[in-house]
């Protein structure tokens, strides 16, 4: 298999593509299972694993629109940058996106019990 790229592309259901650091993305158990080479060869995810492209186009979640995805990606980086620090200022979350983002966070498993430091694994 070709060398794994440092970056992963996430595609929202309205066609926006986000290129995100692989290590940052692994915080989401959902995406991790899509792209992790250790996970089983489940058919729909095999492509994602090989190409490093996670396609949310067919997942008809309201949470995978570009707008929400942008915030999610922002969180990935926020978390990647700050996870080792104490006293981190909260990320700014617009009130109107809050509900969709909440569903997205639930879908992607971005819950406190799943948060672990990336360099540890």
């Amino acid at each position, binding site marked *: 298999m070709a060398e794994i790229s440092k970056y992963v592309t996430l595609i929202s259901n309205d066609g926006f593509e986000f290129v995100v650091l692989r290590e940052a993305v692994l915080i989401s158990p959902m995406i991790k299972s899509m792209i992790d080479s250790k996970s089983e060869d489940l058919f729909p995810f095999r492509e994602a694993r090989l190409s490093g492209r996670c396609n949310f186009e067919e997942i008809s979640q309201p949470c995978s629109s570009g707008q929400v995805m942008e915030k*999610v990606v922002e*969180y990935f980086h*926020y*978390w990647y940058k*700050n*996870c*080792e*620090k*104490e*006293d*981190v200022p*909260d*990320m700014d*979350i617009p*009130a109107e996106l*809050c*509900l969709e*983002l*909440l*569903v997205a*966070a*639930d879908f*992607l498993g*971005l*819950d*406190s019990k*799943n*948060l672990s430091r990336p360099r540890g694994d």
Partner: protein
Amino acid sequence: MQGTSGWVSNLNSIMSSRQQRAGRAIRGPHSALTDFLASQNISANRIREDAEARRNVANDSTAQSADAGASSTAANGDADELAEAETAQVATTADKAAEKKRKTQAAAIDKIKKSKAFKKRKRQDEESDSDGIAEAILAGRAAPLPGQMENCEICEKRFTVTPYSRAGPDGGLLCNKCGKELAQDNKDDQKQKKKKVKARGHARRQVASNRLDGVIGCKSLMTMCIQTLVNNIDLADDLGDMPAQIVDRVARQVAKRRILTPESLNLFLQSGFEDVTVYDAARLGSDDLIRIFQMVPKLTNLKLKNAIQFKDEVMDYLITRKTPLDSLYLHGANLVSEEGWNKFLVAKGKHLKSLRVYFTDKHVGDNFTASLKETCPALKCLKIAHNQEVTDAGIEHIAELKGLEHLSLQLITPTSTEPYVKVVNSIGACLRTLSLTGESLSDLDDRVLDAVHENCTLLRKLRITHSEVMTDAGFVRLFTNWANKPLTFIDFEKCRHIDSSKPRENAHLNGLCSDGFRTLMSHSGKSLKYLNVHACRHITREAFEDAFSLDKEYPELENLEISFCEEVTDFVVGCIFRTCPKLKNLNVFGCMKLKEVRVPKERFLSVCPMRWAWKLKVLRTELVTLVELVRYQVLYVQGCVLFNLGV
């Protein structure tokens, strides 16, 4: 040119000072300060005139340059030697004066550069060069004095300078109106600054608070979303198709902030729901509580905390509905009368599987427990807490509830052993949970433990607290050859001997002591998740060391409470962490022999021995390394001021 004008002004000032000296003989009324200054050879008048002269120089420099030019040509035109000499003399004097003036000005500017005001201004605008600022300040000092006329720096109107005239942003003076406006702006700025300072303190407290809540570092996206949602709860109309556990988390957060109002209640009421949990119903009226039953027809599990307005009328309404209630959790509903409860049990008791009642004043009493047998045949879980009406007789009625699997009592009226023995003998065989707690149990004796040993085989959770009469032998008998499977939850808080005159002596081995603790751990250690031996003071160090010796392992233990067990040492705590791989929380309040505990990563330790706090204060560097070691744990050190200093 400058030199000439400087000389003129200098001459002026010399002359005026001479006049002054001459005039000093005539004395008007003087202040003490003027006298003092005069004795020091300082004259306010002279200072003022000097300043005025300097100002005139600055103001008229352009005008005077023309004059000076004219005079110099005139001097050139005259071939008169005397005149020439005079001019030369004038020129040299002027040069000297100018030199002197430049020096004094340079010194003043240097001084200003060192001053606070300069530094402040410099901070405000980093870009402008320092000389410019210093000159501006100098010019500001040389501003017109009270009583003079001046052009306002902002609106350029002419106005009379008063002692209260304010300096403008560029060093000039402002008229009354503009000054007021500027002052207002400054005030707003200051307010913002104050707010910022406040916010900083708030942030520090928030960090400490989060630490105690176990939230350290980055929050999860979910937590932040829920926070934002709760902050804007008024804007939300509907939570949509949110999974139930998220709705529950939102409900908890709303309750924590105490902002659950009749309006926001609607978010948690959807016709499809089967569970409704309101963690803080204090702001809801009876009508709002009735609305719960109207809007959620399929309601099976209802949990209401602080449900003060849950009155008879709400009960009456509930009785008329076909709500298939399985489980009722009512907290603080002390306005429901005895009759109201009775009607409810008669109408709805048939399907009721779980009934939990907290904080009822007078109306849940012996009659209530007596009627349960008839009205609630399916009851599996009964909890009566903070109740002052149920007595021994009431407890005996519970013995007839044959289907009961979970029994939890926290009574206030003192009770005796016999009714509990009767209950355990009668229904103990089915019980999964037996929780007896509260001050009312101080006379509970070994017979209850024996009854539990005899009858209970399915227990998972056992809690018996506050008994002062039970003995170590009783606990040993309970756990030796007990047919029950290992328990997951044990709480023997405050089962200890109390004698204020001889607090250390325990001749009859009352309470949970060493042997009881050893047998407890060998019986249930394998599956124990929660163990509380709070204040069981007579468990010895040897017993702890035996129980947590390194060849043993307690694979499930997550929470251990050993506060006020006096014999716990650093070694014991170390052993505990080694033998309990899943341990998350260890509570060691009041364990005075602890001096220096090393907490492994991802574990929590709550500590509060005063002596420890003192030690931390002395050895602050140690604290820092300790905190470094345990960076991701909660370190709760009550009474230690340094903890709040951001270490």
